[in-house]
C-alpha cells in the first residue's frame, strides 16, 4: 500500500493575508501605498511637519524660489509654499475620504435596497441614479456648491453626491448576483431576516469591487475638489487648497512658475499613487481579472 501523500498541504492562510501577499508582489502598487502613507502622515501631523502656518504672510519675502528656508519657495503673499502644500494635503485628503464615505454609504444603501427588493423599488432607485448620471459630475458639483455656498463642507457634499452612482451600481450588481445563490437560501432557512442578510452576507461579498472603486474614488474626489478650487468655487482663502493655489499662481506663471508647479505636482503625484494602489488592489483582490 503506497502511503505517499501526493499533495503537499500549503499552510492555511486567511483570504486577506492572500490579498496582502499578492499586493506585496506588485512593486508599483506598493510604491503607491508608500506615497499615500507618507501623504496621510504628513496631513495628520501637518502642524508638526509644516515649518510655517498656511497663512503666514511676509510681504518682504514674496516670490522666492526654492531655498533652504523655504523648500518650495514663497508665493505672492510671501507664504511658504511647502507648508501650504502640506496643509493642502490635509484638505484634499479630508475631502477625498469624506466625499467617498458619503457616496459609499448612500450609494451602497441605495444599491443594496434596489438589488435586494427588485421590482418597482429597483426601478425607482435606478431612475434616480440615471438622473444623477445625466449631469456631468463636475457640473453637478458646481451646481451644488453654487447652491450651498463655497466652503469645505459643501465641497465634500457636492463631490460626494456626484459619486453616488458608481457605488450604487457596484453594490446592486453584487446583490443581484448573490441574491439567488444558495447560501442565501440556506441563511434564510435558518431564520435570518433581510437586514441581517444584507449586512452579514451580501455586503462582505461586495467588498472587493467597493475597495477598488473607493481608492479610485478618492482620487477623483481630490481632482474634482481641486477643479472647484481652480475656478474659485471651492474652499475659500486663506485655507490652502491645491486647486486654489494653482488658480492664484496662474497669473505669475511666466515669471514665477514655481507657484503653480508645486501644487500641480502635488495633485498629480497623489492621483498617480492612488491609481497605482487602486490597480494593484484590483489585481490582488481578484487575480483572475489580471491580464
Amino acid at each position, binding site marked *: 500500500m503506497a502511503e505517499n501523500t*501526493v*499533495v503537499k498541504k500549503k499552510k492555511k492562510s486567511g483570504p486577506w493575508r492572500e490579498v496582502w501577499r499578492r499586493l506585496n508582489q506588485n512593486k508599483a502598487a506598493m510604491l503607491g501605498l508608500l506615497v499615500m502613507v507618507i501623504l496621510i502622515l504628513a496631513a495628520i501631523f501637518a502642524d508638526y511637519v509644516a515649518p510655517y502656518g498656511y497663512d503666514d504672510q511676509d510681504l518682504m519675502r514674496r516670490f522666492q524660489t526654492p531655498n533652504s528656508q523655504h523648500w518650495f519657495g514663497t508665493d505672492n503673499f510671501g507664504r511658504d509654499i511647502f507648508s501650504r502644500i502640506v496643509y493642502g494635503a490635509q484638505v484634499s485628503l479630508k475631502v477625498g475620504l469624506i466625499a467617498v464615505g458619503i457616496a459609499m454609504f448612500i450609494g451602497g444603501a441605495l444599491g443594496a435596497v434596489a438589488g435586494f427588493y427588485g421590482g418597482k423599488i429597483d426601478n425607482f432607485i435606478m431612475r434616480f441614479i440615471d438622473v444623477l448620471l445625466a449631469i456631468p459630475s463636475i457640473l453637478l458639483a458646481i451646481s451644488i456648491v453654487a447652491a450651498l455656498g463655497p466652503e469645505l463642507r459643501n465641497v465634500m457634499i457636492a463631490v460626494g453626491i456626484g459619486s453616488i452612482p458608481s457605488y450604487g451600481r457596484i453594490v446592486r450588481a453584487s446583490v443581484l448576483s448573490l441574491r439567488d445563490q444558495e447560501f442565501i437560501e440556506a441563511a434564510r432557512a435558518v431564520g435570518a431576516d433581510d437586514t441581517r442578510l444584507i449586512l452579514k452576507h451580501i455586503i462582505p461579498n461586495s467588498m472587493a469591487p467597493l475597495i477598488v472603486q473607493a481608492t479610485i474614488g478618492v482620487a477623483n474626489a481630490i481632482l474634482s475638489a481641486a477643479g472647484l478650487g481652480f475656478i474659485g468655487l471651492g474652499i475659500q482663502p486663506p485655507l490652502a487648497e491645491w486647486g486654489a493655489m494653482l488658480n492664484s499662481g496662474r497669473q505669475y506663471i511666466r515669471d514665477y512658475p514655481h507657484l503653480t508647479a508645486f501644487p500641480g505636482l502635488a495633485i498629480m503625484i497623489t492621483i498617480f499613487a492612488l491609481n497605482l494602489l487602486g490597480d494593484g488592489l484590483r489585481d490582488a483582490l481578484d487575480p483572475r481579472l489580471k491580464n
Partner: protein
Amino acid sequence: MEKKKLLEIKDLAIHYITVDGVVKAVQDMYLEINEGETLGLVGETGAGKTTTALGIMQLVPDPPGKIVSGEVIFEGSNLIGKSQGELRKIRGNEISMIFQDPMTSLNPVMTVGEQIAEVIRLHQNLSPQEALNKANEMLLKVGIPAGRAKEYPHQFSGGMRQRVVIAIALACNPKLLIADEPTTALDVTIQAQVLELMKKLKTELNTSMIMITHDLGIVAEVCDKVAIMYAGNVIEYTDKVQLFTSPKHPYTVGLFNSIPDIESDVERLKPIKGLMPDPTNLPSGCPFHPRCDKAMPSCSKRVPKNTEVAPGHFVKCLLYEEGVEK
C-alpha cells in the same frame, strides 16, 4: 488490409511554464491513428487531453506553453518545425478541431453562414457567393435549415451551435478531425443526436477522428482504438474490444470498476481512491502509484515504459514490464 498511417505522435512532451511551477501537461507520448479510424483519447479533467490536441494543431498558447520535445508526423512530415504559413494551410483544411463549449466557440458578431464561409474561402478558391452557397450546403448536411445562415450564434441552441461548429470543421473535408469533448456541454438527448451526426459524416467523408472524452460510453459507441491518459501520459492503448474485455492498467481497471452496474445490486460505489496529482508536483516514478492498489516498491522509483502486452495493446505499468522486481 493495412490502413495507411495518418498521424503518428512520437515522444511528445508539452510543458506550461507558470508562476507556480512547471506543469508537465504531456509527457513521453506515443500515439498513432490510421486513415478512416476513430481514436478515443480518454482521461479525467487535467489529464492532458486538450493539450495533446492543441499540440497536434500547433496551437499551444506560447507563452506559457512549450513543446519541449517530440514529433508530430502527419502524412509523413513533422508538423513541429513547420512555418506558420504552412501550418495555416493545414489547419481547418487537413486537420480540423472542434472544442468543448459551443456557447463560446462561435464569434458572437458574425453570422453563422459567414463563419462557415470563412474557412471555405481560406482554403478554396471560391468567390464570396460560391463560398456562402457551400456554407449553406454544409448547414443542410448538419441538419440546420439553410435559411438560418444569416442568423447569429446566440439565436441557436447549444446543440445547434455545436452542429455549426461541426459544419465549420468539416467544410473543407479534412483528413483528421479532433473533437475535444464535443458533447460534454450538451444535454444527454442532444448528445446522442450530435454523436449520430458525427458518425454519419465521418463515414460519408472518410474522416479520421480523435475523440477526446471522459465518457467510456461514448468510446464504446464511436471509437475503434482507445488511448487512456493519466497525468500527461498515455498509460494504455489498444483497440476498443480489447480495452473493454481485458483492460490491463490498474487505472483503466479502476475506471471500469467505478461505473455503477445497473444490473447488479451493490451497496457502495467503488471509486478510485485519492485525487489526480498536482501537475506542478507529480509523484516520482509512476504517476499513478499513490492511488494504485497494486503498487510495488519499485513503482515509486521507476518510470514505466511502454510495454506491448498483446499485439497492438500497449501499457505503461511496471506490472507488465520485463526486468522488474515483482
